[in-house]
C-alpha cells in the first residue's frame, strides 16, 4: 500500500460497489471496493456478468461455424480476433494463405485497430469528465466503419476472414478512401493533441497516476499498450512476426513511466504507426487470389495442440487449439489480453483515490465482453 495514504488500521472502512452498472465501467463490470473515505483499501473486480462460454461453443461447432463468434468477444477490434482464430486454425491444419489475402488482413486489422484506439480515446477522456473529444473521435471512427463496411459487409462484429484467405476483395474506391482517411486523420491528430493531450487538467490527472511497474506487468501477464506503457518493448507483431508484418517498417512506441499518461501516449502513437503500416501495405499490395486455389472445404487439423497469438488492440490475443482430428475443436482456449490486464487492477489501485483509480481503469482499455468471453 502506498505509505503516504496508509491510515490507522482501526479506521472504519466501507464497501462500495462500482457497477455492474456504472458510467465508468463501460459495460457490466463490477468492482468491489473497500474504501477508507475516498481512498481505496482494496479493490476486487467481479467478472462474469456477460460470460457466454465461447470456449464451449467452440467445442460444439465446426471450425468454420465458430468464425462469427470471434467478432463478438472484443467487439471493438473484432478483426484481430478473426485473425487470431483463423491463423491458429491455419497453423493447425497447414493451410497456405495467398499473399494478397495476408495484405488485406493486415490493412483491415490495422484500420480496426485505429478505430478501436479512437473509441478508447474518446471514452477515456469521457471517464475524466471531458465530453466533447468522444464525439470528435466518433466522427473519425465513423469513416473507418464506412470503409470497413464496404469490404467486410458489417460495421462492428466483423466476420471477414476465412480459412486460407478473406471473404471479399477490396476495390479502388476502398484504396482511395483509405488514403483519404489517413490524410484526414493526420490533420486531425494535432487537434486532438492541442485539445486533449496538452491540456493541463488532463496532464495533471494522468501524470504519475496509477503506476504499473515493469515487474508488476510481468507478474500479471499484462500485454499490449499496458505493458508498453511500463517500458516493456513487447508487441506480437514485432516479437513473433505473423502474417506479413515483417515486411513493413513501423515502430513500437514504448514509454518508460508506467503511469496512465504513458499508456495514453502509447495508444496515441500507435494510431500513427498503424497508419504507416496501412500506407505501406497499400503501396505494396500484390495482385492475385484472395483465397487458396483449392477452396478450403473441410478443415480437419491433425491431432495435437497448437498455439497462435496476434496483437489485438488491447494486447496479445492467443488461441490454443487442441484438436482430436475431427471437424470441431476438442478444446479451444481463448487468451484475452484484457483479462490479464484487468487482473492487476486490484494491486495497482490500492491506496489510490477513487477518481484516480477510475483514470487507471480507463487507461487499461477494458472491453468487458472480451474479459468475460
Amino acid at each position, binding site marked *: 500500500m502506498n505509505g503516504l495514504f496508509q491510515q490507522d488500521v482501526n479506521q472504519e472502512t466501507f464497501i462500495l460497489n462500482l457497477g455492474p452498472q456504472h458510467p465508468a465501467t463501460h459495460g457490466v463490470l463490477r468492482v468491489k471496493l473497500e474504501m477508507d473515505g475516498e481512498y481505496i483499501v482494496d479493490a476486487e473486480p467481479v467478472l462474469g456478468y456477460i460470460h457466454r462460454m465461447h470456449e464451449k461453443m467452440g467445442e460444439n461447432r465446426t471450425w468454420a461455424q465458430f468464425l462469427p463468434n470471434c467478432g463478438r468477444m472484443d467487439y471493438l477490434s473484432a478483426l484481430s480476433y478473426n485473425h487470431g482464430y483463423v491463423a491458429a486454425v491455419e497453423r493447425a491444419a497447414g493451410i497456405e494463405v495467398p499473399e494478397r489475402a495476408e495484405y488485406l488482413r493486415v490493412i483491415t486489422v490495422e484500420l480496426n485497430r485505429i478505430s478501436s484506439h479512437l473509441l478508447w480515446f474518446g471514452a477515456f477522456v469521457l471517464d*475524466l*469528465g471531458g*465530453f*466533447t473529444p468522444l*464525439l470528435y473521435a466518433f466522427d473519425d471512427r465513423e469513416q473507418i466503419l464506412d470503409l470497413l463496411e464496404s469490404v467486410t459487409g458489417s460495421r462492428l462484429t466483423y466476420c471477414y476472414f476465412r480459412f486460407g484467405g478473406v471473404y471479399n476483395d477490396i476495390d479502388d474506391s476502398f484504396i482511395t478512401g483509405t488514403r483519404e482517411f489517413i490524410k484526414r486523420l493526420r490533420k486531425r491528430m494535432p487537434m486532438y493533441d492541442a485539445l486533449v493531450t496538452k491540456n493541463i*487538467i488532463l496532464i*495533471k490527472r494522468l501524470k504519475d497516476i496509477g503506476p504499473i511497474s515493469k515487474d508488476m506487468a510481468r507478474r500479471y501477464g499484462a500485454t499490449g499498450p499496458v505493458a508498453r506503457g511500463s517500458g516493456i518493448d513487447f508487441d506480437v507483431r514485432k516479437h513473433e512476426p505473423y502474417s506479413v508484418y515483417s515486411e513493413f517498417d513501423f515502430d513500437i512506441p514504448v514509454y518508460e513511466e508506467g503511469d496512465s499518461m504513458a499508456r495514453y501516449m502509447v495508444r496515441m502513437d500507435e494510431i500513427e504507426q498503424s497508419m504507416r503500416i496501412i500506407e505501406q501495405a497499400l503501396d505494396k499490395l500484390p495482385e492475385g487470389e484472395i483465397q487458396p486455389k483449392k477452396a478450403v472445404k473441410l478443415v480437419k487439423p491433425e491431432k495435437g495442440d497448437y498455439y497462435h497469438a496476434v496483437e489485438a488492440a488491447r494486447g496479445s490475443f492467443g488461441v490454443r487449439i487442441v484438436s482430436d482430428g475431427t471437424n470441431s475443436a476438442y478444446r479451444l482456449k481463448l487468451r484475452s489480453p484484457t483479462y490479464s490486464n484487468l487482473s492487476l487492477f486490484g494491486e495497482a489501485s490500492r491506496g489510490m*483515490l477513487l477518481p484516480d483509480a477510475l483514470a487507471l481503469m480507463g487507461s487499461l482499455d477494458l472491453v468487458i465482453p472480451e474479459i468475460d468471453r
Partner: protein
Amino acid sequence: MPEPFRVILFIIFVMAFAGLNAAYLVWCERKGAGHIQRRIGPKEVGPFGLLQPIADGIKLMTKQLFLPKGADPLLFMAAPLMVMVPAIMSFMVIPFSETFVAREVNIGLLMIFAFASVNVLGLLLGGWGSGNKYAVIAAARCVSQNIAYEIPMLVTTITMVMVTNTMNLNEIVRAQAGWFFHWHIFRLDISLLMPVAFLIFFVCSLAETNRAPFDMAEAESELIAGAYTEYPGMGFGVFFMGEYANIVIGCALSVILFLGGWQSPIPFHPVGFLGVIWGLFWFLTKLYALIFTVIWIRWTYPRTQFYELLNLSWKVLIPISLFNLILTALQIKIFPWL
C-alpha cells in the same frame, strides 16, 4: 407604485426569471454542447427544439416521487428546496437595470453570500439524507470544495468593497459609469491585479456552483450523479433548477463587480423607461456572454482531480487574492486621489 405591490410583482418576475432561465439554459447548454460537438442538439420538439425544456419538465413532473429505503425523509425532501429557495432570494437584490431592482439593500453583497452558503448545506443534507454511499462521498467533497473556494471569493469581494466603499450592488455599478475602461476589470490604477481578481472570482464562482471542470459533487463518471443519485423526478428537477439559478447568480455577481453591471460600454444612458431597457439590455448581454463561457468551459475541459482542486484554491487562489487585497489597500492609501 405602492411598495408592497411592487415587491410582489418583483417576486413573480424573479421566480419566472429563475424558472425560465433554468429551463432555457438547459436548452442553451444542450444546443451549445451540440454545436461544440459537431451535432445538432435538440430539434424535434418545437422549432429548434425550443419546446424541449417543457417536454423535459412534464416528464420530470409525471415521475413518481420515490423515497429510497434508508433515506431520511425530511432531509431528503428539504434538500432540493434548500438549494432552490436561497438562489431565488438572491435575485431580489440583483440590479438588472438602474431602477429595475426588487430591493436596493445596502448590504446586498453580504446577503447574496449569506444565501449562497445555504446552497452547500442543501447539497450536504441531500447527499447525506439519501443514504447512498456515492451521495455521501459527493456531499463530503462538496463541503470541502465550497469551504476552499469561499475564502478566495470573499477575499476578492472584500477587495472590491474596499474599492467601492459600499456593499450596495447598485452603488457598485454606479461607480463604474462612463466608458468601458471605467469597469473595474480594466481599472489597473486601482489595483494592478484587477483582471486577475476577476479571473479568481470567476473561477471561484464556477467551483461554488459545482460547474465543470469543478463538478466534483456530480462527477457522473465517478459518482454516478453524486449528491443527486437517489433523486427521482422533480426532486432532481428542483436541484437542477437551483443549480442553474446559482450559475446565473454567480455570473451576475461577476458582471456587477467587474464588468460594469448595467452600464453600457459608452458613456450614454437614456433617461426614463428607455434607460431601464438600455441597462437591462447591457446587463443581460454581459450576463449571458459569461454564462455561455461557463457552458463552453464545461464542454471543453476534462474534470479536475479533487486534490488538484483544493491545491488550486489553497496554494494559488488564496495567496494571490490576499496579495491582491494588500496591493489594493496600499494603492488606495498611497494614491488616494485615484
